[in-house]
């Protein structure tokens, strides 16, 4: 029953979600909404579990003075502080929005802005025409990079850039999407029919 129960439950819910797509029956639509309600509740609970797990992971590092423990302490301080100020002042007022605007936002934006420097350095070091395929990739990359900015448009490269994006890029992306779609369908059918049981854990 430990294994059969979840498989039967998965079959019923899976079939319900499949059938609701093809019928306007109000009873089915209500059950569909129930499933979506549960899904959001489950997601909310996983967020709480994530926060608890993060807390204890870093707590252990601080307690045992493991390598990099001061960073863990900072993480814990930030976590506890943000939760407390949100509970005391609400997320719309007081220190919470201030911390978001003046600490989190600039820090995240800075991290992303550093990409420009690393992309320049990495492309200089790694983007080498070592083979025919690498050379093709390099030429396409350069054309798209230039064709997507005003200076490339002045040079007339935007037509080439658009062609690369519209044809070779799109063909590759479509192939990947069709493959992923077929794979997802196959996996979904296997889960509904109880053939794929890895989601039940080891030994299922």
């Amino acid at each position, binding site marked *: 029953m430990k294994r059969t129960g979840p498989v039967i439950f998965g079959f019923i819910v899976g079939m319900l979600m499949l059938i609701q*797509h093809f019928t306007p029956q109000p009873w089915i*639509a209500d059950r569909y*909404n129930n499933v*979506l*309600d549960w*899904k*959001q509740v489950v*997601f*909310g609970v996983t*967020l709480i579990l994530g926060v608890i797990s993060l807390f204890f992971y870093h707590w252990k590092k601080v307690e045992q003075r493991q390598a990099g423990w001061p960073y863990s302490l900072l993480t814990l301080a930030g976590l506890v502080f943000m939760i407390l100020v949100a509970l005391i002042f609400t*997320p*719309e007022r007081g220190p919470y*929005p201030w911390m*978001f*605007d003046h600490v*989190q*936002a*600039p*820090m*995240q*934006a800075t*991290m*992303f*802005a550093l990409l*420009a*420097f690393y*992309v*320049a*350095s990495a*492309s*200089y*070091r790694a*983007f*080498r*025409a*070592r083979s025919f395929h690498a050379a093709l990739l*390099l030429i396409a*990359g*350069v054309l798209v*990079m*230039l064709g*997507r*900015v*005003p*200076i*490339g*448009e*002045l040079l007339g490269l*935007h037509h080439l850039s*658009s062609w690369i*994006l*519209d044809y070779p*890029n*799109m063909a590759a*992306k*479509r192939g990947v*999407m069709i493959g992923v779609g077929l794979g997802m369908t196959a996996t979904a059918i296997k889960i509904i029919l109880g053939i794929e049981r890895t989601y039940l854990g080891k030994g299922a």
Partner: protein
Amino acid sequence: MAPDRETAARNAGRSRSARLAARLAHVDRRLIFVVVGLAVALPLIFPLNLPIQSSREARAYFDALEGLEAGDEIIFSFDYEPDTMAELDPMSMATLRHAFRRGIQVVALTNYAGGAGIAERVLSEVAAEYDRTYGVDYVFLGYNPDYSATMLRMGESIQRTFPTDHYRTPTDELPLLQEVDRYAEIELLVTVTASALAEYWIIWAGGKYGQRIIAGNTAIQAVLIYPYFQAGQLDGFLGGLKGAAEYERMIEVDGAGVRGMDAQSSAHVLIVLFILLGNIGYFLQRRAERAEGSQ
């Protein structure tokens, strides 16, 4: 020239080219960082005002909003966090300016916890520019965990998906949400995103409920949604800061997108130059190694 002197001269020439190759192939990364910093900063201080042409996808994005009438409603989803603010904020600002200017009402939300602060700032700033009233001209529903369930449930009932807005006001008390409650009553959905969320909106809101969608994407993400645009599942899209700049030019309100274009141009040219430099160094080095091997 005597044979030994000839060989010595040839060897000296080879070692010179080997040194040059090594130098070209191994530029100090600190120098690269300084040059990139200058290439980005200088055009921001001294603009070149390079002309900006509009792409067909950006034109389609503009047309989708331009085709709406005053009093129509759109859903606007801030699907990004502060890391991509520099690239996506200009799109959000321009889209909301376009919408508010034309009297279009906006139902805003975010699928990222970090997007709430961005949405509040952008909405309040642009709404103040056009004197729009909260609750009547626009609402902000806030963040709901689990984007897939949110996207699907909004097709059934927005009020049920978001019982309260971001400020804890019951959504059934907001005048705007008394007029519209599901995709069928919304003319257009706009998502500005740095992730695959545009694809999920297309699949769940577009595929299941037939919602018309336009998307603003980071340049990296834009490459991935061309098939949806070509297939007509996406009415239009903006790609990266360039897309934002094109759109700003179309609505005739220059912003951070247009200002950033010169810097982006010079940075891209510089990266291409570095790639060329690295390859010249690589080939010279390979030739020098072959010459040494043949001796």
